[in-house]
């Protein structure tokens, strides 16, 4: 039995409905203090809504959520003081300089004046923005803005840092650097990191991962345990007729195969030995075949029936739609 104090976030039977749509459908989970918690799911699965509830921006329809010992509905101010947020969309005042943005943040989060200058210097140097601190934010690049948001999210030493797609659209170099800060922060400050991401290599850095789809929590475990779930080896084949191939795989080996952009995927226990006999005996012409160790992506595909990569396209579509909506309104 774990002590309740070990959990920094406790979510019990959380439900959020928007009219007829149930965005979050009876979710319960705990986040341990000091861990990196990965929250994954296709777009529209309820990730952002759940984060919205946890950071007091969205009122839950029913259920309960406790963060740092405070109820997110009844103790909003204390919850807000306990969290830092890095949003998917920028939330900086780009008419102000980087320094002014941080000062504003410090004043609304009650950072004591005596340690303010030193804290600001620390976070700005950590995110390598110190030299640009007196420039207006609108002159920053996308990566710099994101780094400034992260610096700002850390300024008041939050207990929990929510990172909603913190590295979406950033170049690999910046992504790596941001991850160095995040991990350093978790080690040094013991900050709990609540992360959503579309990059599976980033999700791999989490201590535990929860996958949600259609507002339901499907699974929650460590990345390595999740990978074991996906079967030990993954075989991808391209055939002349993928639909028939799925049927034949089921018939011959009793394995449920799934389609993906590069053909048909299925898992087997000992791929190296399985493959030669498979190629010899298969009734449908095989165009190409490959074997690899399972990744989180496979877990995701297996559990949600969708590829996380499709997400990026979906995300783009959603963005385009959002822009369209804005224009029309």
């Amino acid at each position, binding site marked *: 039995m774990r002590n309740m104090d070990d959990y920094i976030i406790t979510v019990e039977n959380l439900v959020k409905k928007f009219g007829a749509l149930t965005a979050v459908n009876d979710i319960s989970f705990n986040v341990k203090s000091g861990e990196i918690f990965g929250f994954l799911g296709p777009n529209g699965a309820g990730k952002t809504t759940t984060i*919205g509830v946890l*950071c*007091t*921006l*969205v009122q839950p329809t029913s259920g309960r959520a406790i963060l740092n010992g405070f109820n997110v509905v009844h103790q909003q*101010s*204390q919850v*807000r*003081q306990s*969290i830092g*947020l890095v*949003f998917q*969309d*920028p*939330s*900086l*005042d*780009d008419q102000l300089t980087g320094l002014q943005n941080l000062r504003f*943040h410090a004043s*609304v*989060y*009650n950072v004591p004046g005596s340690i303010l200058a030193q804290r600001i210097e620390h976070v700005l140097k950590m995110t390598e923005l110190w030299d640009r601190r007196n420039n207006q934010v609108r002159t920053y690049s996308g990566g710099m803005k994101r780094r400034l948001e992260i610096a*700002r999210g850390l300024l008041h030493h939050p207990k929990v840092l929510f990172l909603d797609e913190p590295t979406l659209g950033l170049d690999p170099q910046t992504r790596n650097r941001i991850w160095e800060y995040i991990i350093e922060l978790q080690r040094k400050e013991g900050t709990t990191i609540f992360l959503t991401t579309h990059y599976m290599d980033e999700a791999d850095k989490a201590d535990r991962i929860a996958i949600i789809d259609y507002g339901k929590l499907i699974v929650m475990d460590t990345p390595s345990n999740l990978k074991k779930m996906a079967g030990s080896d993954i075989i991808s084949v391209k055939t002349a007729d993928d639909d028939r191939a799925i049927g034949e795989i089921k018939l011959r080996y009793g394995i449920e195969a799934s389609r993906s952009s590069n053909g048909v995927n299925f898992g087997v226990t000992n791929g190296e030995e399985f493959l030669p006999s498979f190629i010899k005996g298969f009734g449908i012409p095989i165009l190409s075949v490959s074997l690899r160790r399972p990744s989180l992506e496979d877990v995701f595909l297996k559990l949600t029936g969708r590829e996380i990569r499709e997400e990026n396209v979906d995300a783009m579509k959603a963005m385009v739609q959002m822009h369209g909506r*804005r*224009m029309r*309104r």
Partner: protein
Amino acid sequence: MVSSIIFPLFFLFIFGSGLGSRLGLLGPGVNFSQFMFPGVIGMTVFMGSFMGGVSVVWDREFGFLKEVLVAPISRTSVALGKTLGSATIALIQGVITLIFAPLIGVYPSALTVLSLLPLMFLLAVTMGAFGVLLATRIKSMQAFQVVMQMLMFPMMFLSGVFFPVEGLPGWMNFLVKINPATYGIAPIRQVMLGGGSGSTFGISLFGHNMSLWDNVGVLAGFGIVIMLMAIWSFRTQG
């Protein structure tokens, strides 16, 4: 900012010069420009503060509003701050417009100017709160601008800026009397051009001739109600 000073001045000088010579005196020793001038002061304050709500929409558009909404600060104080901010700017704009008084032959005393300030500020807070109220519910910049203009111009024309509002047709009288701005323009005119209740420049409500304090009371009532609505609306927005 500049446009909300220049625009009323256009009205003052173009309307004033164009119509003024035909209209003659509107009251004892008061020509059309002089009649319109207090209205134009009110209009400057009105426009400036009403449009101030745009900063909320602007913050939302650029995402900064989210930073404010998740901060551990009371949303009531944010709503009040936004309102008082736009009211202050509008007050300054109104004072700048006052400088043009001598050009149309109005010479307010220092005391008059001093007593105008609280009246202008009350109007500014009321309309500033109205702007914030709309901004919390209208999420896009384009829609906000459309709604602003659709509300602002009728409210301006039906507030007694350009003509005396007594003896109007029934429907128009109704619209004038439910317009909060009416009770902001009237006392400014009463202070600048003199004349208590019942004079040419006063207004009446339900047959009662409104004194300066009556007008201030009604405006303050509107102000408090609109402010409370704005605060409630700001607190409940996602």
